[in-house]
């Protein structure tokens, strides 16, 4: 008995730990992206996001002032200035690239011919010489500094205030909401017919819809655009709604039909005996009971349309009136795509709405709506 109970609990632990590790593994990239979105470009280039929570040490050099900057102070000629960037603490400094951390802050280095250089703890340097300086190019002062962890909301400010973002957001909404609602409306009707109405060729039709799932949308883009142009639809919202509807329908019909087929036959027969017409059965029984399936497909379709760039690029114009968020963010990132901090920030800004949709819908995903209708249900 003891062995059995013990085994079970240790197994549970193993499962929990494994699940925790998996979740951790799964969320780390997102966390990384999130942290990166609060760092500036230099920080991203110099160190990984995981180092951003501790002070970072870096070595670089600055050039001292030139002869033009010198002032005479009694018998000495002096050049003064700041060797470290603002907000960084000096750890060590040096005068030669071979030994860039030769001196501690506050020490004085002999530069020969009576000239000296000292760098104070606050990063200010003082170069003195009994003779006037004659160099036209400043001497190099190597500094090793440590910067405290620092985060910035500058990226967010930049993306959020980018010109046309509000407009692009509205454009994306204009694309996404109808492109989610229209396929659900059509697919629900189709799925009910394919699941519960008797007509010849029903099985073939279902098979054909499932078969359409394998067609990659990329092959359809250009022919579809040509069709749109030929029938006078051109590039515009109506065109992209139709395109997204078409690309989404096979999966929608397939998902909804499979769900509806699983609804208890007796409930539908009961409604039929109760005098409900085919449409009333659909509206009052099937639709409410299919809500979990409708919600999950709505989430899929919403995410996919929201994040879409390809279809929008093809079916919408590049004008300010039609540019979607993904298109705008791509422009922000620069032509070489090197601005990672913008990439990370954009990702988090564009993720916000889908997250909202997901949390609004997820209770319908989990809840079993069929409980109580039939025995054991």
């Amino acid at each position, binding site marked *: 008995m003891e062995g059995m109970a013990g085994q079970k609990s240790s197994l549970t632990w193993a499962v929990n730990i494994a699940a925790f590790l998996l979740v951790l593994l799964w969320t780390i990239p997102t966390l990384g992206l999130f942290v990166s979105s609060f760092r500036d470009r230099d920080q991203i280039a110099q160190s990984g996001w995981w180092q951003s929570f501790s002070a970072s040490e870096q070595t670089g050099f600055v050039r001292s002032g030139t002869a033009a900057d010198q002032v005479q102070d009694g018998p000495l000629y002096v050049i003064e200035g700041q060797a470290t960037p603002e907000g960084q603490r000096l750890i060590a400094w040096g005068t030669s690239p071979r030994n860039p951390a030769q001196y501690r802050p506050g020490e004085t280095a002999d530069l020969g011919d009576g000239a000296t250089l000292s760098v104070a703890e606050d990063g200010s340097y003082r170069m003195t010489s009994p003779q006037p300086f004659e160099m036209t190019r400043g001497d190099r002062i190597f500094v090793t500094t440590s910067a405290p962890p620092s985060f910035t909301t500058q990226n967010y400010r930049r993306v959020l205030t980018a010109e046309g973002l509000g407009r692009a957001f509205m454009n994306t909404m204009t694309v996404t909401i109808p492109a989610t609602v229209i396929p659900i409306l059509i697919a629900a009707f189709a799925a009910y017919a394919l699941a519960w109405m008797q007509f010849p060729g029903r099985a073939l039709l279902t098979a054909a819809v499932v078969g359409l799932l394998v067609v990659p949308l990329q092959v359809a883009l250009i022919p579809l655009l040509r069709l749109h142009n030929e029938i006078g639809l051109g590039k515009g919202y109506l065109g992209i709604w139709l395109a997204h509807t078409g690309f989404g329908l096979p999966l929608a019909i397939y998902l909804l039909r499979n769900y509806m087929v699983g609804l*208890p036959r*007796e*409930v539908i*027969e*009961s*409604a*039929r*005996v*109760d*005098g*409900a*017409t085919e449409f*009333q059965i659909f509206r*009052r*029984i099937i639709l*409410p*009971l299919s809500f979990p399936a409708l919600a999950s497909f709505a989430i899929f379709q919403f995410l996919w349309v929201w994040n879409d760039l390809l279809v929008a690029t093809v079916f919408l114009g590049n004008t300010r009136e039609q540019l979607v968020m993904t298109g705008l963010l791509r422009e922000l990132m620069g032509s070489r795509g090197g601005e990672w901090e913008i990439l990370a920030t954009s990702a988090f800004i564009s993720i916000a709405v889908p997250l909202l949709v997901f949390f609004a819908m997820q209770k319908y995903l989990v809840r079993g*709506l*069929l*409980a*109580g*209708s*039939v*025995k054991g*249900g």
Partner: protein
Amino acid sequence: MSGVQLNRVTKDFGPVRVIHGVDLAVEQGEFCVFVGPSGCGKSTLLRMIAGLEETTGGQILIEGQDVTDAEPADRGVAMVFQTYALYPHMTVAQNMGFGLKMNGHPKAEIAAKVAEAARILKLEPLLDRKPAALSGGQRQRVAIGRAIVRGPKVFLFDEPLSNLDAELRVEMRAEIARLHRELGATMIYVTHDQVEAMTMADKIVVLRAGRIEQVGAPMDLYDDPDNRFVAGFIGSPAMNFVKARVQGGQVVSPAFAATLPAASPALTEGRTVEIGLRPDALRLSGDGPFQVELAENLGGTTFAHLRAPSGEKLIVQTGQRLDPAGGGSLGLSFDPADAFFFDAETGQRLR
């Protein structure tokens, strides 16, 4: 006028005929039970009356009206399903009012009828609950209430109690019987449980393989079965059958030492027959050739499982308690008037 009339009704599923020309008249206000082993077509027949299955051939009349091709909703029937088939997203009141709502009745009338049905079934405290928050018995009561609200000409019950536990089943059985008395409506009830059939029915229809074997009042079927199937199906424990042969004006069975007089003219010389004896028609008597294999003591009665010298098994109902493990051998006696005779091949009763 009969409540439900079936004229040579047939049903084919593709090439397979499952209902073979059924003729039946259910009187108005009658409680008719379809009974039979599973797969005998009793549920199919009920669904044909409801309009949920198309009728391949023949005619179905409800209160004199031909409804063979009518929609379920236009037949004036209400059905109670084995699985309850409640609408899970509606409250009890909405469930019961759904049918009237679909037919465009005014709200006040729906509310009144729902309240009336809830009163009859004592569902008033549950009206605002969803089906998920109800027990099995309550769900079935809601399903019955949904049928009542519609005020149908015919109630159809498809094994409504088989998902309930034994205690609830007894309770609901009484409830449905009471309902039938109160409403006085025609009811057709499908079950495979013969206790339900015997206790509730005005008329039992015994079906086998898509054919009606016999129609009659419960006690008529018990006392006067038409054939071996009905005799074996009605009554619990089932009737005992032993092989026999008519010889010299006597029915001789290898199982019994005694012979029986061939009382019926149908018992012609040399014919092989089966003798049917109800367990309660047999009496144990002293020592004899019948070995006791097992005894089921139920307190008031005991069912003794005996094996005859011919190898045939017999069940005897007796008041005397026996060793449950069996052992020993006993004699049997019975009144020759209690014996039924059946043709060994066709199973028809030889009267």
